[in-house]
């Protein structure tokens, strides 16, 4: 029942001469929440950017190895990169609402596809905001500026924005790092619900969050994948000493 959704084979990544990822090998299973932990500059964010090829936009970015999403090598020349990015939605660490209304933020990606039918968009907005746990708070002010929302609300808006495109994967890069505990809890709850329909990759520098939410956890250190296993195993019986040291706070 554990279907392999993404297979990463010997993935290395370079920014110019600097190597940021070193021969990563891992599998991501469908409908799981994979947590990725590790200190700063370990390559966690770079890893996500490789999965949806957002790294292509950075001059000097180079990839070796293969990434197979649903069996397809995403770096082969015939791949539609734009469609790939819709398939693997990403939520960034700092919530970035576009300078538009809440409504327009959510349908931004949908409008890019040329779908402008008002009824369809209305439905998408309600559906996405519900799934992100934000609908009740903003349903009366959909056409006001998104910049007026609080930090936690903005981040949930960003999640809804991604959901509007019906992705298959949701990647979150330290999504709650600047948020208060209540917003954090709300988002973690949404993730547990969303897991049923999506495959979720959660990068976090808060190890306790990974312990709370992730099914499996991967530990990245300086561009290497040190270990990856079921979350309880990683946290109680880590196979690698470095993992243990990090979890115990001996460095970080």
């Amino acid at each position: 029942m554990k279907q392999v959704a993404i297979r990463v084979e010997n993935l290395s990544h370079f920014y110019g001469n600097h190597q940021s990822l070193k021969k990563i090998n891992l599998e991501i299973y469908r409908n799981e929440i994979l947590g990725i932990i590790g200190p700063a500059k370990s390559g966690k964010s770079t890893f996500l950017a490789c999965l949806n090829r957002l790294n292509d936009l950075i001059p000097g970015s180079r990839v070796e190895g293969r990434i197979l999403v649903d069996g397809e090598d995403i770096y082969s020349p015939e791949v539609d990169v734009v469609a790939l990015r819709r398939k693997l939605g990403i939520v960034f660490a700092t919530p970035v609402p576009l300078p538009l209304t809440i409504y327009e933020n959510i349908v931004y990606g949908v409008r890019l596809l040329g779908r402008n039918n008002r009824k369809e968009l209305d439905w998408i907005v309600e559906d996405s905001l519900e799934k992100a746990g934000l609908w009740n708070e903003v349903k009366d002010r959909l056409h006001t500026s998104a910049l007026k929302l609080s930090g936690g609300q903005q981040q949930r808006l960003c999640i809804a924005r991604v959901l509007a495109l019906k992705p298959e994967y949701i990647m979150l890069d330290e999504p709650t790092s600047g948020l208060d505990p209540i917003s954090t809890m709300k988002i973690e709850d949404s993730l547990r619900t969303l897991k049923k329909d999506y495959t979720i990759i959660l990068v976090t520098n808060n190890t306790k969050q990974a312990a709370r939410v992730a099914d499996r956890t991967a530990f990245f250190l300086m561009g290497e994948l040190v270990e990856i296993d079921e979350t309880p195993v990683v946290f109680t019986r880590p196979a690698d000493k470095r993992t243990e040291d990090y979890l115990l706070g001996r460095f970080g």
Partner: protein
Amino acid sequence: MRTSPKVEQKFIQVVLYAFTSIAIITLIFILAVIFKNGIPQLSLEFLTRNPADMGREGGILSTIVATISLTFIALLVATPLGVGTAIYLTEYTVESRVTRIIRFGAECLAGIPSIIFGLFGFILFVNKLGFGWSILSGGLTLAFMVLPTIIRTSEEAIKAVPHAYRLVSFSLGSTRWQSVTRVVLPSALPGIVTGVILSIGRSIGETAVVIFTAGSALRMPTSLFSSSRTMAVHFYILAKEGVSMPKAYGTAAVLVISILIINIVTYYLMEKYIRRKS
């Protein structure tokens, strides 16, 4: 004996206050003179009738039309060229020595005295290309004169758009052009429009370039190839040749008021821009 700091400060404050008053009063004086002598000249007739008797009688309608036509052509050419270049330089290229050189070149050219553009326009458009003294020659020369400014202000406005917006747009599946038209340009628009509007102000007041490319014929322009006199040129000739002081003041008043309105509009646009950012 050293004066005490407090005494020194009092003294300096008086001096500064005096200098500031001189500066402000002088600038206001210039406006006041123009308005005092020029506004009485302003009437519907002044604005809607053509000059007669070499400008001693009548109004300034033909010059208004010439000014608008020239400015319109200048911006028609310079705006797409300038904004397009700015978009290409900021969104489609990587910062490199080439782009730095281009930017430096544009900044230099923005500071080149207008008379040199006039020289260039005279030789190229009026003579070599055979357009003669015309609205077309004048408009094209003005276009090149304001082009560096439009490129520079557009570039600054586009660069001021937060990089995160572009990243978000891409992550939601947009192409580069879609991110430019749907996120970057709308955000940068006030800044870009400000640059364009300031160029309008500059074109309206420009005299040297216009005399040498559009000529000074005192008649209503009938086509792109008509030679015609703009308000600024008309004012210059009336004043220098002593043709008619009242009419000169009137023309100056119209000129100054138009430019002031344009600058005020620009100012409010900038305020809205800044307020939207925060």
